[in-house]
């Protein structure tokens, strides 16, 4: 059955600001399809973003939406969720926004295991500001601030968020939107901190400068450099170099350990004293 994605979109705000060939629209499309497959109440859903190309995504979504400061979306979202745990709170962030300036908030959001769904648009570059290297830019890659090749090491955000305590960790890629929708749906339904890194393409500021090519070639690159998580686990270590597992990487179902649930237990303990 066809999904009416427009009922979740602010049609009067379209067309979006993203460049031709950008993967952000694919992520947005998968997200609204995922929302449609859940029983989430759109009136009880808040979408929060920071700064950068990803930061503009909530403006196209017909929910309560908040476009905040650079890197701080998870901190704002934490307040929104803790103040009213009935709300479904989704954070849309980029690799610069979420892993550089907002890296500390990402770590501590995971550690608290607060029930947020964080989708990180990983296009491996600062797109909005014109192509500077981010913590997700591969070593050796060319960016406007690494004209001689990036000497930084890039992050593995899946490892990072898992270690920090996120209870749902997954990776999708824009070449496979059906899988993205499935991962977003699982993340939205998971009670606890859900982190879904999404490999995304920035042909304008990354692909063409690193001889990968345009959007199609970048999607081919994703396909060639990813394997299902189940296959990844069985691969010998030497074959894993430069290959990314896709799918659900880590999952721990323990709703009682969720932050707002734990805080409610404290409140309830006082209510009991009064009885």
């Amino acid at each position, binding site marked *: 059955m066809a999904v009416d994605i427009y009922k979740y979109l602010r049609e009067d705000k379209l067309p979006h600001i993203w460049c031709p060939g950008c993967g952000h629209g694919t992520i947005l499309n998968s997200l609204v399809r995922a929302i449609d497959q859940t029983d989430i109440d759109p009136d009880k859903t808040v979408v929060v973003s920071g700064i950068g190309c990803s930061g503009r995504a909530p403006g196209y979504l017909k929910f309560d939406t908040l476009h905040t400061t650079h890197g*701080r979306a998870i901190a704002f979202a934490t307040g929104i969720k803790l103040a009213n745990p009935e*709300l479904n709170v989704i954070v849309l962030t980029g690799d610069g926004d979420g892993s550089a300036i907002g890296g500390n908030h990402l770590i501590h959001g995971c550690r608290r295991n607060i029930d947020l769904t964080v989708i990180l648009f990983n296009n491996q570059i600062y797109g909005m500001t014109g192509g500077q290297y981010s913590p997700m830019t591969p070593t050796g890659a060319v960016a406007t601030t690494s004209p001689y090749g990036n000497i930084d090491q890039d992050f593995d955000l899946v490892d990072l968020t898992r270690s920090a305590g996120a209870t749902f960790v997954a990776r999708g890629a824009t070449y496979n939107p059906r899988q993205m929708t499935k991962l977003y749906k699982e993340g939205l339904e998971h009670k606890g901190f859900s982190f879904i890194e999404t490999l995304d393409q920035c042909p304008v500021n990354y692909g063409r400068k690193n001889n990968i090519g345009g959007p199609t070639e970048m999607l081919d690159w994703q396909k060639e450099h990813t394997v299902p998580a189940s296959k990844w686990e069985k691969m010998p270590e030497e074959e894993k170099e430069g290959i990314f597992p896709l799918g659900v990487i880590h999952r721990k179902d323990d709703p009682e350990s969720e932050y707002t649930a734990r805080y409610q237990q404290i409140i309830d303990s006082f209510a009991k004293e009064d009885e």
Partner: protein
Amino acid sequence: MSKKEAVLLQGDLAVVEGGMAAGAEFFAGYPITPASEIAEGFARELPKVGGKFIQMEDELAGMACAIGGSLSGKKSITATSGPGFSLKQENLGLGIMIEAPVVVVDVQRVGPSTGLPTSPSQGDVMQAKWGTHGDHPIIALSPSSVKEAFDLTVKAFNFAEKYRQPVILLLDEIVGHMREKVILPDADEIEVWDRKRPPADADKENFNPYEWTDDLVPPMPDYGTGFRYHTTGLFHDKTGFPRGTTEDAKKLMDRMTAKIENNLDEIILYDEDIREDDNIVVLSYGSTARSAVSAVNEARENGLNAGWIKLKTIWPFAEEKVSKLAEKANKIIVPELNQGQLIREVERAAKGQAEVVGINRYDGTLIKPEHVLAEIEGVK
């Protein structure tokens, strides 16, 4: 605790008591001397009434999280000191731009940088006004006693809610850590204001979250109540969406400024004791007012014509009031625990009509009554 009994209360904890009396429901912050007692107090008290407390990973997150709580419809507060106040400026700016009611307490200590963490200062007066980038309205209140810390915390919440405006509560280390005997009012004696929300029958489909209402303060829906509205730190029109036109930018700035400027009579709070023939006026705020009042009383015993005014609201500045004082007085003395910050506003308002003289300490030591008395008596 029976509110009618006298209690021995610390200034920081008076902020907690005042906050709870004003209906605080949400605190997010980060530990810092000399403000940590405020976080500790809210951590104890809020869950008892169904409220929420959270210690965040840093000061920026504390400010962000408190604003998030406010958007979910809860009366929110955060507390810090100078170094943390510097970090909060980024998200304080967003709070101003999106018009989120929130109270930000800064228990001032000596700076710059780590400075003197346990010593008093009034060095953040200008940071409270201009700390975040760009022009913007701000309200800052500064108590001089434990009782005032309670009363002005209630006022800070009320102003924040009524004007959809972050309100700064500037304590200093003396007021924050001092213990005084106070009698707190009963709940029914305290006036508590809540933010204006859109009516239940509002047209949610065509709702404009930043509509130009008569009072210039648009009604604010809680998240999750079906309005599905957009909020951004970008300049926006009445729909909440950025348009990036110069016309919209000016309109928004003018409305945000006017919603405060049109209500100065309500917002500007001060106490004064100036007699008809007093030609010397000591203008002070915060802990320094304690020495100022004491010095004026002693000067009067010595037959001098001196009076005092204590500003409880320092931003917006009481420009008109100070201008009138300067018409009559020969000399205005401004003691401050900094190198001279609010004195510049006093000079600007006095317009040369009276001599304006500062008494300044910025070494972590308080200004004693004899310092002020010496200036009143003209003894160098």
